[in-house]
């Protein structure tokens, strides 16, 4: 039957653009292109200064070929140990505080007032960059690793609680419902119905945060919050680029090791 009929006219079909209105689409596109061009035009690049700076930059890079681990090894190893301690302690404190906040910030677990309170805490933690928090804590508690630990713990809460809460909101409800139907208590329900579903994510995020906290410990040290950052800052102040290079190489190595180890662990806990 179909074979006998003549070939029908071809009907067109094209994909749907995100913005359906043709005029609006073009107006927005052109406006964006103009703004981008204007914005690039306002960047003042002093080519002479850049040319001169290249030399200094090169001296810095050249120091990497000759890093000096030895001269200041005592300072480096002390700073490093302090940084690692800060990292572990602040990550542990951060996780311990993040878990209850994440439970409160998951819409499927918490009543509305608790939800808003916990989301509020997360927002506050996320809206301040580590450096700003570190400056505040250094002003409050003085120079040293204590301010650094507080800073990193505070930053961990915003990161971990938010992402963990989102994972809790994405759980399979039926598994949790089945545990509730057995007559277990709320805590047992969390332990059997929720925890197994979010555990891989919690472990993965914790390892990732450990890694971030180590890198951040180097940064907050520059504003006086202790750790390897303080040692690095001193090295720069003394123009000891070879020592600074040694410190940077150690930081890179530790971050790489952490990255590699966390990759292995995360693959195991899936």
């Amino acid at each position: 039957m179909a074979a006998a009929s003549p070939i029908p006219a071809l009907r067109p079909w094209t994909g749907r653009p995100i913005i359906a209105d043709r005029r609006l689409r073009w107006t927005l596109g052109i406006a964006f292109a103009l703004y981008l061009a204007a914005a690039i035009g306002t960047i003042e690049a002093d080519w002479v200064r850049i040319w001169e700076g290249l030399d200094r930059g090169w001296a810095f890079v050249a120091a990497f070929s000759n890093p000096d681990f030895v001269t200041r090894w005592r300072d480096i190893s002390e700073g490093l140990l302090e940084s690692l301690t800060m990292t572990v302690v602040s990550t542990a404190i951060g996780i311990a505080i993040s878990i209850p906040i994440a439970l409160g910030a998951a819409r499927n677990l918490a009543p509305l007032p608790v939800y808003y309170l916990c989301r509020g805490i997360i927002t506050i933690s996320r809206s301040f960059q580590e450096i700003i928090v570190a400056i505040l804590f250094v002003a409050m508690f003085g120079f040293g690793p204590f301010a650094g630990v507080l800073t990193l713990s505070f930053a961990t809460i915003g990161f971990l609680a938010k992402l963990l809460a989102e994972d809790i909101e994405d759980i399979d409800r039926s598994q949790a419902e089945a545990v509730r139907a057995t007559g277990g208590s709320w805590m047992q329900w969390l332990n059997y119905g929720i925890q197994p579903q979010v555990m891989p994510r919690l472990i993965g995020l914790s390892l990732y945060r450990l890694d971030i906290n180590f890198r951040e410990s180097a940064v907050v040290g520059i504003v006086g919050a202790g750790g390897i950052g303080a040692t690095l800052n001193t090295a720069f102040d003394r123009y000891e680029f070879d020592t600074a290079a040694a410190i940077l190489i150690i930081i890179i190595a530790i971050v790489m090791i952490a990255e590699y180890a966390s990759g292995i662990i995360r693959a195991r806990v899936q």
Partner: protein
Amino acid sequence: MLVLEGLTKRYKTGDLALDHVDLEVPKGQVLALIGPSGAGKSTLIRCINRLVEPTEGKVVLNGETISRLGSGGLRRARRRMGMIFQEYALVERLSVMENVLSGRLGYVGFWQSWFRRFPPKDIENAYRLLERVGLEQFYDKRADELSGGQRQRVGIARALIQDPELLLVDEPTASLDPKTSRQIMRLIRELCAERGLAAIINIHDVALAQQFVERIVGLRQGKMVYDGPPDGLTPEVLTEIYGEEDWQATRKKGGEERAADAIVEDDERLAGAL
């Protein structure tokens, strides 16, 4: 044993899921709840153990009004009602043993369950139930390593270890192939007979319901429109429940399927034993 009086559920959206349902289930009776999607079958069994809060009406289990209990009383009442789910609802990342033992959560303290230190009697019981459902060698496997039929057997063991008086079964076969569906239905049927358990089974497959239960309740738009034996499901009754359709063919097909089914002898043996 279980009495529902004027059970009504209106969701926040305004949908009336259950409309004054009255139902009495005697001890040991296995009952199938049929009806089109959205008729309120799932809502009905969830109102019994209050995973869904009923808006109006009473649920009475052995003289205790469940719909009035506080949270502690409700938890104790839930221990007496085992639940079996459509997509098995096993905790996927826990082992088979942990899933089965989670049925005892209502009986053990928090730290006991946290450290997985269940009473030896419960553990022995879990092994026995796994043997009964044919999964004794799987106790240390993770739940997500099992096939659909195996998972549903674990789900059944989890419900039974609660030592319930009533099983609430929500579409136990909806995710299973026809053969496994029959095996699971037969297993539920046998276990109810062995333990004198009552069961309410939500089910889509009318032929399967007719084959395995002694009483059928039809639900349409939250109202009970049929309550009687499986044989009473005439085309007129099915039209009343599901709406206009050529039921003669469905019924005939159901009958043929039953005759062709190699397991029919088991059913007769089981029917004789009851």
